């Protein structure tokens, strides 16, 4: 069963194209990370999926139905972000009770247990919480709702490291006990990559790739060594990232289509072959800037030397 299916999805705000002919299929009961730099269209895509926004063009199906303004999709999805609106006069307990009324699978014991664990008094007002506490409460709501489609849009903003770690573990355990489709957007892939199954990488509103995480780690390799040797190796290959380390030594990331012979050749010419961490790869794949930050400094230096 497909949880999400979109074909040629477009979302335009005035001049700004937030989502650009995006096609995506997410199978049900997968934990998928939506990764991309700021402004890649993550939030817009998630809001389109949650049915908050209306697509400008293209088709979008969530559990087989168009999500915009759809009560059935809304009842089966929860959207967690740091801009969730809560009435300031109600306490956390009231909010939980409301969630219990509208979400069929609401797990009250889990909600209570998590609130208790994070030392959040159910009698507290949402308005009186700190930013991190608010994020924690939102995340708890997202977990306890047990929605077939659970969307977390940067849920950890403001949480400190310990809480973040606990939350990731809670998410993983809850996911294993109650498998469901989870979308998790973050620009900090490093922290969450272990618990994700698939990754959708976005850039400028389009999909760069959609791969299971193990495949992503094999997607590219890093080559470090003599620039000349690297040149020979990278000829006719897709170079994803280059970094000049010294005048004759550089680091290149290429798409992993090396054959056994190539590996041998590399080793013989003194080139180190390393795996590229998924988080780094995502950065390389979505880099908008030309070159690296080092180039800025080398340019200013050459100007100064002149």
């Amino acid at each position, binding site marked *: 069963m497909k949880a999400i299916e979109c074909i040629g999805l477009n979302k335009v705000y005035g001049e700004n194209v937030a989502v650009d002919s995006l096609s995506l299929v997410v199978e*049900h*009961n997968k934990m998928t990370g939506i990764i991309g730099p700021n402004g890649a269209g993550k939030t817009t895509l998630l*809001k389109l999926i949650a*049915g*908050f*926004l*209306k697509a400008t063009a293209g088709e979008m199906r969530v*559990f087989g139905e168009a999500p*915009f*303004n*759809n*009560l*059935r999709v*809304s*009842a*089966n999805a*929860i959207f967690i*972000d740091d*801009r*969730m*609106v*809560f*009435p300031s*006069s*109600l306490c956390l307990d*009231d909010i939980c009770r*409301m*969630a219990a*009324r*509208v*979400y*069929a*699978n609401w797990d009250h014991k889990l909600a209570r247990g998590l609130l208790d664990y994070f030392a959040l008094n159910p009698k507290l007002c949402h308005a009186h919480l700190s930013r991190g506490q608010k994020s924690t409460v939102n995340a708890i709501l997202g977990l306890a709702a*047990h*929605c*077939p489609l659970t969307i977390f849009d940067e849920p950890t903003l403001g949480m400190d490291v310990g809480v973040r770690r606990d939350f990731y573990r809670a998410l993983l355990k809850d996911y294993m006990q*109650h*498998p*469901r489709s989870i979308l998790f957007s973050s620009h900090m892939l490093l922290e969450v990559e272990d618990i994700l199954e698939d990754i959708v990488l976005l850039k400028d509103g389009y999909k760069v790739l959609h791969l299971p995480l193990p495949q992503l780690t094999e997607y590219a390799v890093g080559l470090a060594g003599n620039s000349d040797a690297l040149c020979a190796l990278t000829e006719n290959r897709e170079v994803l990232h280059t970094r000049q380390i010294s005048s004759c030594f550089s680091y290149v990331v290429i798409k992993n289509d090396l054959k056994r012979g190539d590996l041998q050749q590399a080793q013989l010419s003194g080139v180190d072959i390393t795996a590229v961490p998924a988080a780094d790869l995502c950065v390389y794949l979505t880099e908008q800037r030309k070159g690296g930050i080092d180039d800025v400094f080398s340019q200013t230096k050459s100007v100064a030397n002149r």
Partner: protein
Amino acid sequence: MMYLAKPSLWRIVKAQYAFKLKAHIGVFASLVAVNLLGIALSLSFSSQFGISMGQIWLSMRSISNEAVLWVTVLWAFVVAVLLTTKDYSDLDFTFVSNCISHNLSNAVLLITWSIAAGTFAALGAVLLRLVAFFVFPDDAIVAQNVFLAPLELVVGAAVSSMYMLLAGCIGYLGGKLMQAGSLLALLTPLFALAFAMLGGGGEDVLRGVQSITGFIMHETSLLLFVAKSLGTAGLIFGLAFLLSHDTEVKRQ
């Protein structure tokens, strides 16, 4: 695998209504404040005239509860506009909602608030009399219209509630217009004005407005009055609903 929930619209509307009623308790508190304000205004803006009877000066102070009524009508309007603003509007979409359930629960909420406001306004007239007793301790009280008959109170509450509902629906429509796009909100009154100018001057429009208000206000049967006001309110609300049916949830 988790089963997919089949929500019933009515259940969601009920939950949203109960949630908002509880969440917006401040609205009721403001109603109390407005009620007291109306009473204070009624007391301070009482009309007064004097006559002299030989050596004796007679002064007659007239107190009307109209201030209570109009302040409450204004309250109903403002509250309805407020209900369409982002913070209030997005509240539904935190959890399960669509436009229909959102608007329906708002409608029920407006009806509840209108009935409360109407009742408050009608009973406020009684409280006004009681307060006036103590605020003007030296005045003799003309024993007319002091005691309101139960029927008068009930009819007063019902009629006031309808005024509140109408004001609320107009406010809701205005708020939704504003949310739909500031341009449209700006243009609507301009168009109306231009239309009035071209279509035979302001007097016709005034007469039109009068005939509309007269259609509702000058009704002698309570049932017909309620039916007419409910119909008009429903019409206005329906317009607001159609206007906001395709609105996106921005949540920011």
